[in-house]
């Protein structure tokens, strides 16, 4: 029950080596072992998407992933999204400007989901964005501010208008 393994992961560019119980989820490992509490748990059964991180550049549910499965892999969490301590990523800025967050609990998962999506789809339609975040539950916003933010961020990332 408490078998352990040693794993090495790179999280937001920083390398970690830790001994973990094999049953510990990646979400709990990030939050409790590494202290990266920006990744949130909303349902722990893979539906709400709050715990979404990127594993080797692909979005993944950290509540349904075991920490040992991430051995040797690259992880990005919400703490690694902003370019610096006093700058936000354009998607983060857009979420604030378009009121795409209220309580903010689902926001980290939304960010990591949309960052992957915008990498693959630099010029998305509103319907594309709605589909992309259909695996993320938000109880506050009705998603509209999130969709508007994603459209604005996409434009900004393409080098279009500033706002």
């Amino acid at each position, binding site marked *: *029950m408490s078998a352990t393994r040693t794993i090495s992961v790179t999280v937001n560019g920083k390398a970690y080596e830790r001994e973990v119980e094999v049953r510990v989820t990646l979400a709990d490992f990030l939050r409790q072992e590494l202290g990266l*509490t920006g990744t*949130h748990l909303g349902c722990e059964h893979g539906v709400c998407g709050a715990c979404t991180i990127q594993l080797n550049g692909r979005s993944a549910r950290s509540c349904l992933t075991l920490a040992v499965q991430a051995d040797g892999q690259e992880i990005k969490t919400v703490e690694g999204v902003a370019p610096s301590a006093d700058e936000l990523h354009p998607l983060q800025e857009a979420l*604030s400007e378009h009121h795409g967050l*209220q309580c*903010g609990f689902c926001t980290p998962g939304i960010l990591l989901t949309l960052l992957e999506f915008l990498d693959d789809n630099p010029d998305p339609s509103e319907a594309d*964005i709605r589909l992309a975040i259909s695996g993320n539950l938000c*109880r506050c*916003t009705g998603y509209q501010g999130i969709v508007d933010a994603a459209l604005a961020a996409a434009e900004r990332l393409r080098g279009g208008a500033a706002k």
Partner: protein
Amino acid sequence: MNMTMTVIGKPMLRLEDPRLLRGEARFIDDIKLANMAEAAFVRSPNGHALIKGIDASAALALPGVMAVLTLDDLRPHLSGEHLVVGLPSEAYKQDRNRPALCRDEAVYVGEPVAVVVAENRYIAEDAVDLVAVDYDILPAASDCRAALAEGAPPVHRDGADNLLAEFDMEYGDVDAAFAGAAHVFGESFWQHRGGGHSIECRGMVADYDKPTDKLVLWNSTQMAHSSLRVLVEMLGRDENRVRVVTPDIGGGFGPKLVIYQEEVVVSIASIVLGRPVKWIEDRREHFMTSTQERDQYWEVEIAVDDAGGIRGIRGSIVHDHGAYTARGINLPQNSGETLPGPYVVPAYRMNVRLALTNKVPVTPVRGAGHPQACFAMERMLDRVARELGLDRAEVRRRNLIPAESMPYTKPLKSRSGAPIVLDSGDFPASQQAALDKADWSGFGARQQAALEDGRYIGIGVANFVKGTGRGPFEEVTVRIGASGRVQVYTGAAAIGQGTETMLAQIVAEELGGEVANITVTTGDTARNSLGIGTSNSRVTVVAGSSAHAAARKVRDKALLVASHLLELPVEELEIVGAEIRAKGADERRKNVWIALADVANAVAGTPGYALPGGVEPGLEATERLLFDAMPYVNGTAVAEVEVDPHTGGVEILSYKMTHDCGRMINPMIVHGQVIGGAAHGIGNALFEWMQYDAMAQPLTTNYADYLLVTATELPRIEVVHTETPSPLNDLGVKGVGECGVIPAAAVLASAIEDALTPFGVRIARAPITPPDILALIRAA
């Protein structure tokens, strides 16, 4: 009200956002204290059962388990075994308060029986499975109508029946109104709403420090001061030995206004073990143990004249209360009180019965009984229109309270005993604006064209009002200290509605105009001696008004002290940012200024020196402005849908609202609240259904079985705001948090029914799911 506002009314970016966007916010589960243990609860798997015995020996033998506590173990630390939290009412026929843990009877699935504390949550959950509880299963009452029937199994084995409370609301000569009416139409409705489903579940960290005998409860609650009161009463502790603090809160939506057993149990666990104890609700527990809204069954009749004018309404409601009183009779009281809503209803009588059931208690979820009232009223008006061959909007127009009748008194009493007075607003204009925006008059042609293409589209309309800003008060302290920054403290918790930004805008308007110079602390009982909390779309009205008044007092004092220090009259001074300056562009005066920090220090006192100008010490003010009457928000929703008669699927083609919540402190935030509320209401209308079987076993305890609305099911929601200032407070504000929810089920039922006109389908329920629609089409 100062009409040259520079901060209030601006769509400023929220102060909360940067920390939330960076993952740097601190939610309850992010708190990790040294030596902290974690708890998991042993919960009843039965809707109703006797508990014959609890054997924790195997659990206690598991390495890493520190304690398994039952009610017997809590007793030495309890001065009362039950959480007594019900709002007062004469309508109660039974007192049904929750014990901290089950004694010898469990009355709903999920009721806590024992708590396990262990080194971590993994071990605690292992140990929960090892606690053997010997249950004798008893018959359970599941359906609230059946629970009130003769011979129904009692929800509590010592109960004679399951009638928790009954009351009537009445005004006018109802019988005469019906006796002389040209038409009387009767309807039966089943209305269901689900749980709160904040994406962050409940949770808490209790930190008992033995050397100082102090207990701090970090708590993801909407009501820090209520939590404190319950802890003081149940643990027999002094107020200065308990503190409840709210961290960042990942949504509330109602269920977090309730004080729960876990708050008491986790606190005692920390006291017993002498170390911090954390408990975080998991999602399955949220479905089983966080309070919900559930079922209401309505029988209603409406009496109208030949022109569709309402003469009277009468009926009855059976309301599923759950197994205990966790809040009060307020939910069906809201429903009954609100039914006449924005309309002139000369005579009205409603009988309300609250049924105990073997389910988790029912308490308000965003909207709190109002969506059900709106649904019942609007469904009846659609019926009137159909029977009399009138346009649905026209029937409403004929019955809406005219603008010139404002303020309009309804001869009903609110729970404070004060009459219900709709304070302001123009309801007919609101409806007309929504109709115009949705091209209501052009819809007939659109519908005909669609039908020719084999498509079934429909349009619906619904009006609503919502009492907001429930009193009596919310305390706000505004203080400037040595930092020169303005500190704002309120007992109300911030649960995602931009409370920090809203209060900062109100305070900044009076104190320097710079929101960045304001710091807001919410929901900490060590910071405010009194507090009510966050509920009932109340914080902007009650806390906002107190903040406004307190900021004015601080402003006046700061200017007075500065006038002594600068030797200039008060009228020649102004606060700009964190400084007080001489007004005017005069060159000589450019250097005449003093920092707010220096003013604060001057009145903070220096040993042996007098205060300037003989003022009272301190640059601060605390206000608790009292409110009784409630400002009423009004609005209209118009929705267009397409229904697929082969699948029962509903697509919302457009969703438009008008909304008047008085003066908007931050229009961006208000807009977001209305849209978010509308989405919540649309989810209630089409998807959310908390199902139980006949033994009161919950059947939908994950997000695959219980559906929350996602981005792909929602249309772009369009909202037109008007601002009719409320005369009830200086800011002219009304609340906003719950309002978007209210007309959703009503307007979608209207639209779906309209789309299915060729089939003659009648919608008398919510949620309206695809299987329901198919069944209705088949039956029609």
